[in-house]
């Protein structure tokens, strides 16, 4: 398996390099000129043209795209992803300070989505074709079909405005920081992110559990006197994890996409919020930096999904 991972990593490096070229070209060729947009057209005056030309030269935007890419690439190899066009700060430090909050939101969101999905999935499988099963189906359908920003706004309306239980924005209260405060800020966004992602997991867990519960080995175990709980947890759940684990790993990028929306709604200072503000201001270097983080995440989560598959199911051999 070691050689498989090394081979896959090498392929991923090549794919990643191609992605950098594509992202760089797309971002720079997208309509919009970040420098011209610094001054609204109706407020131009006789000195503006000079300012714009000066700024463009300073940022190297007056050079050819190939030259710009090469400059960016050689810097990137040394760990420098460039500087924000808007505030001049290094992209790596801008991304660096946002990774933590995003991982926190994604991590807790993932745990909550698994808690929701496993509880509902197992119950639905055990109580197949009953009101409980239909109820769980409705919930999972709801989580897939209702947009996450809408759920977020409803959540804010209910928990922040109506009942005033939880804060509606930010990661902490600057005047009273602490664990409890952080947890209170995290609950709503993480729960909504988790709910939004739990639907597909739940459906997979339910169908996978049904297959395993109906299998011969489960019936045999029950016939030999194993308790229902033991059959469900020890035998069926363990085997049903095989397809579910790979799906979870492969859906990490989707979780990040959900986090981008949640971060915007809840003023959560993560990478998603940075990405949106950089797109709005055409901040090329930050947009590219963010796109590369996403690309790396997708490549790694695909690799993780493959590797996990062999770990949970030794019958699968990778070549």
């Amino acid at each position: 398996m070691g050689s498989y991972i090394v081979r896959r990593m090498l392929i991923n490096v090549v794919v990643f390099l191609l992605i950098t070229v594509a992202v760089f070209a797309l971002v720079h060729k997208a309509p919009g000129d970040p420098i011209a947009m610094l001054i609204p057209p109706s407020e131009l005056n006789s000195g503006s043209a000079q300012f714009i030309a000066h700024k463009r030269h300073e940022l190297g935007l007056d050079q050819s795209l190939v030259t710009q890419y090469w400059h960016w690439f050689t810097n990137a190899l040394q760990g420098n992803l460039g500087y924000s066009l808007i505030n001049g700060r290094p992209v790596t430090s801008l991304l660096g300070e946002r990774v933590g909050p995003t991982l926190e939101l994604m991590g807790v969101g993932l745990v909550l989505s698994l808690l929701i999905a496993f509880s509902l999935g197992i119950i639905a499988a055990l109580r197949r074709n009953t009101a409980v099963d239909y109820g769980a189906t409705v919930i999972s359908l709801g989580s897939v079909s209702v947009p996450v920003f809408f759920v977020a706004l409803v959540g804010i309306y209910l928990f922040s405005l109506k009942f005033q239980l939880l804060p509606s924005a930010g990661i902490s209260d600057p005047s009273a920081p602490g664990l409890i405060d952080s947890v209170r800020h995290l609950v709503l966004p993480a729960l909504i992110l988790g709910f939004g992602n739990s639907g597909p997991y739940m459906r997979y867990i339910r169908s996978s559990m049904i297959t395993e519960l109906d299998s011969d080995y489960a019936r045999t175990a029950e016939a030999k006197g194993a308790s229902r709980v033991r059959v469900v947890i020890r035998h069926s759940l363990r085997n049903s994890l095989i397809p579910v684990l790979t799906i979870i790993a492969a859906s990490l990028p989707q979780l990040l996409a959900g986090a981008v929306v949640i971060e915007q709604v809840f003023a959560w200072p993560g990478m998603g919020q940075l990405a949106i503000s950089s797109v709005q201001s055409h901040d090329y270097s930050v947009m590219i930096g963010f796109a590369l983080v996403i690309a790396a995440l997708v490549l790694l989560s695909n690799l993780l999904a493959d590797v996990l598959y062999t770990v949970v199911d030794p019958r699968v051999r990778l070549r």
Partner: protein
Amino acid sequence: MRKFKQGVVLGSAVLATVLAAGCTGPKSSSGSNSGGASAGRLNMYLYQEPAGVFSPLAAASGPDMQVMSFIDEGLLGVDPDYKMQPVLAQSYDISSDAKTFTFHLRPGVKWSDGQAFTSQDVLFTYDLMANPKSTSATAGNFTAVEGVTDFVAGKADSISGFSAPDASTFVIKTSKPDVGLLGQIGAVNIVPKHVLGSVPVEQVAKDPYFQHPTVTVGPFKFVEYKTSQYVHLTANPDYRTPVKIKDIYLKPMTSDVATAQLGNGGLDIASFSPTDLKTVQGFSNVTTQERLGAGFIRIGLNQTKPYFSDVRVRQAFLYAVDRQKIVDSVLFGKAAVRNSDFAKADTPAGINEYAYDPEKAKSLLKAAGWDFNRTVALEWIPGQRDRDATTTIVQSQLGAVGVKVKLQQLQASDLIGSYKKKSYDMVLFGGGNYAVTPWNVNTIASCALAYPTGGNLTYFCDPKLDQLMAAANSISDETQREAAWQQAALEENAQADLMWMYDPMGLWAVNKKVSGFQAPGSQDAPYWAPATWSISG
């Protein structure tokens, strides 16, 4: 198996703790304000994330300027009624030829590190602002100052028009009479020479000082900008008057969340949109304030197109649209119909209001020989509810007088392209500030400042208006000058250089615990006199 069970139990316990922790309710955001010392904490809304460069050299960015309005000050400032008021200057004189402006600085002012504030700081700041090498985004505003052109061209070592004859006097000289210049450069925030004076001019704009401006002269001191979360400011104990609030947190978030936070006390002051008016008025803990903005929403008619160069066509377009109805239905009355580039204070009583009159529009169009088979495109950047609705109404009402209009949504960058090519017919946009000084109208209406040299995007040209504007701008006596501006406004109103639509109001919700706050005219405008605001427990 046991481990798995333990995991489930642990997970549930965490969830339960998290939910239980959530039931403690939000904290009160303020303290009490007794005695003369600063007290309490104020939470304010930022409509956008700041760029984090709190610099007068940087291109204008609303949220950053709002932060600067707490920590920085200029010689003059603009009050909520758009009047220039002395701030770091105690007073100023304008010479009778309107070419020399003398500022007498307020005595005893200190920087927040204890150093004395002098005219050298002012001279240093103005030299930087006028020098394109410093990447000053507004260097173009300073070209009217005597000697700037020679300095920029490398023919002079310094700018002769700026001088500091003594520690408490600063003088600006212009090459021709230009009273309006005060409105353009009088409120520049002053930066400390003793901190930045040794930095090469090309490097100043990038100096870390501007990301962490700890030495300032305003009522509040900068503490930190926690990226994307908040900007923390604290009272400057050495400010010339007592600062009533101790800590201010400015927090960027979406407007929906801000509205919710107003209701639950998470924010004490926030701007809101007319669509949220009813919701905000339903909150028992806030009062609302409103003020007309300094700019306006307009439709530009491209006058390089022969069919828009006829003034009767431009007037007909104005008569054809019921702008009052747009204000009432789209903006819930929270805007004023505009009839001039000039602010209401600078327009005389008798101007033509172009009240809705489709019959008059039809006859003007006929007289001008309008081709009723022609279709004109109306371009705009979509996404703002009032503008989106306005375009549809304009399309239908112009249609009713026989003008076929095609709506065309564009991205900001495409719009710049269509300005460059002069290809557009009609374009809807907003912004600007024409209230502080009427001279700013020159930027959008003068023949010499047609795009891309200036901001005259419609290529309107009326030499008579240019003449009237220049004459008004050279009068030092305020009363006479005001009369001259009104003459210019009459001419501009008759020529209908733009299809003026409306001047939106800035709407603000303020927690009842806060007093002294005076709403600015828009969500992105700087604040006025924050030292006088207070918050009770």
